[in-house]
């Protein structure tokens, strides 16, 4: 069984994946960039959810993400860590 990734590793994975999903992200995205102002909408969110489900083997559709979870990559990584540890 693969070891649970650390918070830093999750942040890194998302930092590489998310820029390709966001249309208005012209500059570099940091762990603190506001995802919604970069164009995160329902369609991109579903793509992101599917990516996270595949990558980390957790289900997010039944445990919906709230505003705080989706603020930026750091908060999303924390949420994923919590789900992985549950």
């Amino acid at each position: 069984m693969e070891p649970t990734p650390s918070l830093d590793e999750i942040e890194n994975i998302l930092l590489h994946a998310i820029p390709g999903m966001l249309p208005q992200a012209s500059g570099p995205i940091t762990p603190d960039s506001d995802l919604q102002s970069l164009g995160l909408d329902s369609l991109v969110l579903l793509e992101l959810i599917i990516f996270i489900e595949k990558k980390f083997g957790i289900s997010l559709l039944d445990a919906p993400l709230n505003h705080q979870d989706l603020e930026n990559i750091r908060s999303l990584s924390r949420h994923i860590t919590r789900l992985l540890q549950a």
Partner: protein
Amino acid sequence: MNLSLPFSRNRRYLTGLDWLIGVLDCMTRQATGAGNSSQVILELEGRLDADQFRDALAGFTANFPALSGYPSRDGFNLAPFWKMNGRAVAPPCALTTLNGDNAGEESVALLGRFVNTPFSTRREHLAFHLVHAGASRSFLGMTFDHLLFDARGAELFLAEFNAWVNEPRPFSTALTRPVREPYLSCWKEKFLAGRSVNRALRNLASIKAGSFPIPEAAAGRRAFRYQFQQLNESESRAVTESAYATGGHLMRLPYLLALAVEAVDQVFSGRGLAPEHYVIPVSIDRRAARADSQSIFFNQFSFLHFVVSREALASRERLVKTMVSQMYDQTKSRLPEDFEKTMMLIRILPVGILASITRHLFGGNFGTFIFSCLGESAYRSPLFMGCPVTNLLHTPRVSTPPGIGVFVNEFGGRMNVTTAYLEGVLDDAEAAGISARFQPASRKPPGV
């Protein structure tokens, strides 16, 4: 192996979706006498100077040969392309002056009529209409051929024009000559995508979806009409909050689609009908997926298809959850991407033949209505040639059948809902009822 052969810089090979738009254009022309064109309207404070605008437009459009192009077909590989020869001719711009207390409403109604006027030649794809409404308001309508732009592309074109007027500059060749190779490769991938799309479309075709009868064209011509609902900032915020509370954070598209389905269901109920299913094709912008958010010309969208059963209409919450779940399933199975790839395969057939095949496959029923949620406008400047922009509206002619569409766009945090319908498909009160459903004060759960 991805083989790329050299091709002329005067050609922009059309994608399968561009070709699909051509098919829808052909079907709409046969049913209504005019094609699948659309219009974006800028509502301005002050009087936009018509002569100044025409001069600037002539200077700007001369940079874009694509504007006077036309579809053609490669004799060697049979792929259709957009021929871009020579300088673009400046699009026409008519001026109308209206006075009186209702000049604003009359202006929008007038522009709604302009969009129904067919383009005069095969090389004309753009026409402007400026309306001076009293002394202090103007409405600028840009009617465009859907083969040349999609709605987001039209907004980006106006934004580019305004930026150029403020600071004239040379354009990059990538912008002025949007060439594209024919993509005659990856056949296996396209055929596999085609298999999954074929399965999905056959499933859809087997559903007997509620639809409105299309009236026989009167002397070959029928016009589209429009009913608008403009929400202010706080109303728009209230709708967004309800969407997030019902469907989950950011789930605005499924919520707005649910409102549209409820509203259309009410129209059916008003006619004493209760169809078992509704099928709704929803166009989605694919610029993000191509990492090409500024692409102006041609069509950059794909489709999701939603099926709503009567049971799902039992409560709004259930309806929204159904929408979210179907959106999730289609995104996961990569249906929008597969749809794009599959459409590349159909380009070999002429649009007239494809229109007949499509009609045969779906038995003339192409869903209940078309829905699109454009989100915040790509036209971001508060000014247009010095005039403050107060709103931006879209008045599309909807592909027919189904001849009815519900469109949501946003400008400056304010939502606009437009119900577009072919004359005779709905009456004005029914269409106004659909748009009004989005007003928070009049939002009611089904059955109330």
